[in-house]
């Protein structure tokens, strides 16, 4: 479920999200959004039929900005249209500054079981470079409040290798994360996306570009500190304190699951067909108001594309890639990668070593290219 609202736009962010002033005059508001997503849920029900929902993930944007009540209303609609499977995982992303103990209490009451907070860093100058609105301590406090309110699973997002961040800054951020007692951490190396304010600053020479060698070092540090504290990697950028703490919703994305993406610009996947909605909240709401399909475009995956995605996504998991998915040339390439300390071949699966995790894209490309360029 995509909530396309933010209080302000962070300089590095290229997500489909809008500030209030950007939406002024478009007729879009959290309420029109709510109205529209409810209609889409009804449509989804008509298409999918009777199928209980295992996981819900409300992301953004900034879901916390629309308040616990609307978040509760969304979940209620999902319940009434589909019903939730027993033990369903229900997550919402939240930005630390728009949360409070009452907010979390409201989430619990509505049935949310998991909260993911965009902490990014504990260093004030790094938060400033990232244009974040919250103060350094707020994310950790919010995580504690969430747990106190009875949210079973709490995640903190970190961004590392931001220009200006030192090793000590990062160490401080990870220690702060650990002090919050969360059971899940996502850590992403900063990507300077085209078209963002940050990209313009880099182009003008006002900000140095992130350095890959630094990012590699920081990744290793994060992995060391988290593993020492009992959080194990289960995907290249994700760590959890136990199997039960892993984000089942995201695992669904990575393991070929079916999902319906509700909201402006949201992406869906049902049995090999991917589609995505129109991006602007006003166009999205307008389509649904006319009982029209908000789909912008779609693709039906070819077997090759399906294979590419499988290798690309599964190899990133600690569970690894089933070697049976690889043909002979790719198997040979996997052996080479193992000899180069990039993969570990164990129990019929290929699992990235830590060095391999840092070079995962290369390993994936080499596996795919091995099959493609092998003489027929």
């Amino acid at each position, binding site marked *: 479920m*995509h909530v396309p609202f933010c209080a302000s736009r962070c300089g590095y962010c290229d997500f489909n999200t809008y500030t209030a002033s950007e939406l002024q005059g478009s007729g879009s508001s959290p309420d029109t959004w709510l109205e529209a997503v409810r209609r889409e849920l009804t449509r989804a029900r008509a298409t999918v039929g009777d199928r209980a929902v295992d996981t819900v993930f409300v992301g953004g944007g900034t879901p916390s900005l629309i308040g616990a009540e609307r978040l509760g209303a969304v979940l209620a609609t999902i319940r009434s249209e589909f019903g939730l499977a027993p033990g369903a995982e229900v997550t919402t992303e939240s930005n630390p500054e728009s949360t409070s103990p009452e907010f979390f209490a409201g989430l619990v009451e509505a049935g949310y079981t998991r909260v993911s907070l965009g902490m990014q860093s504990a260093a004030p100058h790094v938060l400033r470079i990232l244009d974040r609105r919250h103060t350094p301590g707020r994310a950790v406090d919010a995580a504690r409040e969430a747990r106190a309110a009875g949210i079973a699973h709490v995640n903190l997002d970190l961004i590392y290798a931001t220009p200006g961040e030192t090793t000590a800054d990062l160490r401080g951020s990870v220690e702060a994360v650990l002090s919050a007692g969360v059971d899940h951490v996502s850590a992403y190396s900063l990507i300077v996306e085209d078209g963002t304010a940050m990209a313009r600053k880099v182009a003008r020479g006002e900000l140095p570009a992130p350095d*890959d060698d630094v990012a*590699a070092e920081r990744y290793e540090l994060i992995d060391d500190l988290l593993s020492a504290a009992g959080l194990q990697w289960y995907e290249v*950028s994700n760590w959890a304190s136990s199997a039960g703490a892993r984000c089942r919703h995201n695992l669904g994305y990575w393991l070929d699951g079916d*999902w319906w993406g509700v909201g402006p610009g949201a*992406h869906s996947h049902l049995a090999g067909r991917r589609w995505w909605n129109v991006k602007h909240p006003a166009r999205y709401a307008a389509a649904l108001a006319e009982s029209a399909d908000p789909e912008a475009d779609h693709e039906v995956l070819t077997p090759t*594309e399906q294979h590419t*995605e499988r290798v690309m996504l599964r190899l990133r998991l600690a569970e690894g890639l089933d070697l049976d998915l690889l043909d002979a040339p790719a198997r040979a390439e996997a052996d080479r990668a193992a000899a180069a300390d990039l993969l570990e071949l164990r129990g019929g699966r290929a699992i990235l070593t830590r060095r391999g995790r*840092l070079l995962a894209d290369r390993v994936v490309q080499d596996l795919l290219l091995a099959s493609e360029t092998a003489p027929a």
Partner: protein
Amino acid sequence: MTTYADRTFTPPERIRNFCIIAHIDHGKSTLADRMLQITGVVEERAMRAQYLDRMDIERERGITIKAQNVRLPWKVGDEEYVLHLIDTPGHVDFTYEVSRALEACEGAILLVDAAQGIEAQTLANLYLALEKDLTIIPVLNKIDLPAADPDRYAAEIAHIVGCEPEDVLRVSAKTGMGVEALLDEAVKQIPAPQGDADAPARAMIFDSVYDTYRGVVTYIRVVDGRIVPRERIKMMSTGATHELLEVGIVSPEPKPTEGLGVGEVGYLITGVKDVRQSKVGDTVTSQRRGATEPLTGYREPRPMVYSGLYPVDGSQYPDLREALDKLQLNDAALTYEPETSAALGFGFRCGFLGLLHLEITRERLEREFDLDLISTAPNVVYQVTTDDGTEITVTNPSDWPEGKVSEIREPIVKVTILAPSEFVGTIMELCQARRGQLGGMDYLSESRVELRYTMPLAEIIFDFFDALKSRTRGYASLDYEEAGEQVSDLVKVDILLQGEPVDAFSAIVHKDSAYGYGTSMASKLRELIPRQQFEVPIQAAVGSRIIARETIRAIRKDVLAKCYGGDISRKRKLLEKQKEGKKRMKTIGRVDVPQEAFVAALSTESSADKAKK
């Protein structure tokens, strides 16, 4: 509308044959446009700028590569005339096109930009025309420009042509001003062609072009007798005979006619499929009762610069061969033979007239035949005598002998540079640094100097022209011609990746430049080759002596770490793009080198585009 010029067998005294010659961009093709318009052969609405620049690449680059002829009607008073006009290219690489055109003419319009004055190719082309005893009509063009200084340049031209400044005509090819008077003057000054209408036919081939639909189209200028369709003709150099399927004129599109008489210019089609069977410079005669003495021929230019052309995708090698075969049909100056490179695989060593010729050929291959090519650094032809007296001709650094050599000779050229006199000092410095020998210096006027140097060709085929331009704020112009060879102290510099020599990067350079080449290539490659999973040393070596070294550090991170939520397509597309990039890389030893690295490392600052100005 039919005109006087539509009928052939025009009496020679009613014919005038001339070409327009000039430095690059002085407005030859634009002047030809006005002539097409004023004589009425191209209607107003069909007109487009540089009408005769018919190739895509000419239109894109705004330069003429191929000379084009066209037959025009013109009246002076009540007298009707036929004009054969040839528009020529101005770039030094295509001087041979000018030479061919001159074979078909009695006169030449020497066009000079009135805001620029005489430039190096103005002189070079003027001398070519004078060698052929052509009547020169000096003309100042672009007099509409505010910066035009016709008085000053008329004096300059008068000085070199040997006429009075008043004799220099003034036109604007853009507005058409003075063009009618110029045509009148051409009729008045240029001698009519002479020939014996009753003698056996003799016609000079001055161009030969392959056309997909019509086969080889041969352009001729009839000297004696007549050429008529349905007759068998004979090529005098080979004795080969062909059926004449069509004889025609160009006005400005091809038009079949009843034949061509003395002094007339036109085309013939025989059904041959290969331009080499219809060679420029050859004499065409009739098979029966043909002539016995050929006309004095014209020598095809020899390639001056060699470069290896390789398909990025090795499987395109047969396509490249086919494409070269086809291009050569139209470009006898292009030579090629297969070669293999350890780094680049199968390709061809190709000979070109110069850098622009190389670049244009490459671009045409890529565009017209949908190929992706890598070209190696261009080099000249070296003659090497080894210690045991063997003579080796080296057109590829890979053929450089390993052992001791007793003598190495390299081609030299006579270079003419024209520039404002204030730049003499800097130009001399530059030429000296490029191993130039000053041959002489003349003042064309108070402020303009002609410098003559003898220089190794190898020193000017790279970035010499750019260096010259930047040191003279763009005011200098350059021309050069072959001038034999000289003994030089040259060495081969090899570039090694992880200890493996990469033949594509080897270069023959003067002993004193070896270090410079080695360090600059090594540091360029360090920037251009992406980091690999292991450290890659780059070395430059002369023989077994390492003269420069750089290291590409191992890559540590290559993974997308960002949350894209359910947008898997985006991630997959990114990956596919990177994968395609990787597929296009050449693997040398264990090192993946992107095509762009070859292109960038092998290209000099001087792309031929820039050489244009």
